């Protein structure tokens, strides 16, 4: 575990170094464009984590295997953290690039609403006591939240939009400088690796919590049983 953490930490440091010093200067935005490498990587991490959360939510509802519930909540937590990173880097980038911190564009709004929705998912989990019910109800909410994302995007798209269209896979003159492309790949790999590492740890934590709850319940049950024996023994 420690070896893996160290490897991911080294990768993240290298990615940060590459984004700051190796990647070439961008022609119009210059230094501030360097935030882009982590901005895009955060969004990809968020998208992966939340899609996985949706799969886990549906799988829990269908199979009732507790590990899907653990995976679901772990993915949502990691997704919310990645979303926060994406929002913060986006705001930092938006101010110099667009002249404003924030705009209610389709992608920004969708990201913001998703962030709120999945924070609500975590709040909901905290407010339901019974584990089985908590898993089911939060999974249902998770499915609705995931279905809502394309609707939020479409409604804002119809309404107003400012975020640039993707330049990487666009037409002839779009595209990245080859070095930029390599740095981007390094950053995406590094952020994804960190996400997976945190996800695995979070999943283990959830499993431990579950085991602890089981142990507590069995101790309680035994306590009740011995109490009954005692009362029965009395004249």
């Amino acid at each position, binding site marked *: 575990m420690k070896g893996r953490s160290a490897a991911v930490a080294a990768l993240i440091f290298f990615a940060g170094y590459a984004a700051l010093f190796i990647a070439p200067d961008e022609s119009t935005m210059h230094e501030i464009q360097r935030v882009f490498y982590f901005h895009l990587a955060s969004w990809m991490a968020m998208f992966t984590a939340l899609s996985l959360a949706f799969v886990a939510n549906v799988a829990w509802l269908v199979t009732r295997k507790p590990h899907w519930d653990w995976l679901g909540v772990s993915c949502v937590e990691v997704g919310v953290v990645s979303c926060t990173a994406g929002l913060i880097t986006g705001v930092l980038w938006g101010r110099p690039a667009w002249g404003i911190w924030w705009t209610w564009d389709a992608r920004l709004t969708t990201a913001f609403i998703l962030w709120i929705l999945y924070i609500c998912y975590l709040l*909901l989990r905290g*407010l*339901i006591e019974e584990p089985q019910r908590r898993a*089911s*109800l939060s999974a*249902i909410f998770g499915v609705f939240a995931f279905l809502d994302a394309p609707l*939020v995007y479409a409604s*804002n798209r*119809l*309404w107003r939009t400012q975020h640039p269209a993707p330049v990487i896979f666009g037409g002839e003159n779009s595209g990245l400088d080859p070095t930029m492309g390599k740095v981007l790949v390094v950053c995406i790999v590094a952020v994804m690796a960190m996400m997976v590492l945190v996800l695995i740890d979070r999943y283990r934590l959830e499993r431990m919590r579950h085991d602890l709850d089981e142990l507590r319940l069995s101790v309680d049950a035994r306590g009740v049983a011995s109490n009954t024996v005692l009362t029965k023994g009395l004249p």
Partner: protein
Amino acid sequence: MTTARAAAIVLTKELRMEFRARELLSTTVVFALVIVVLFSFAFDPTAGESRRYGPGLLWIAFLFAGSLMLNPSFAREQANQTLDALRMAPVSPFAILLGKMLANFIFMAVSEAILVPVFAVLYNISIGGIVGRLALVLALGTVGLVVAGTVFSAIAAHARMRELLLPLLLLPILAPLLIAAVEATASLFAEQPALDRAWLAFLAGFDIVFLTASWLLCDFLLEE
């Protein structure tokens, strides 16, 4: 028993309860009215301004009122474990959900029918020529509101702080519905009223997605 018949029975029960207690409708209407009045202090409602802010204000009032009104839908079944009794009936869980959705739709529709004329008077918007089209927009928007709201009411009923939780779960999910409903209403309130078909289609799409999802998920929603 068919789902439709079972849903009709649940609907009748909900309506009868409301008819006897008369607490839900009156509080909802007054609450929405309070929001509309408060907004008139926050924004100066001259004719031009109210065309700009009016539709948004109207829908915010409906969404807030709805998120409060939908709370008791499942919460009051908790008090005497009547939801367990409902579930024991040999009907599909969707029938229970559908009955409640229909009842909530009627409550919301009645509140809107009372509020819209009051709103039109207070904000100087003439709705004489657009009643039919406005009713269509209101109906499509309200279906989405009550479908999502009834499902989330069932979710929140099992949680602590459910009165606070329902608006928290419901309002962000309804963001696309709010945009579409406000835009569709705004094009009706304009100088040259027109029915915006793109937004109407969007509203209908929202309703269909959420209704289908709640139909697929209702077994898990109402399980013991």
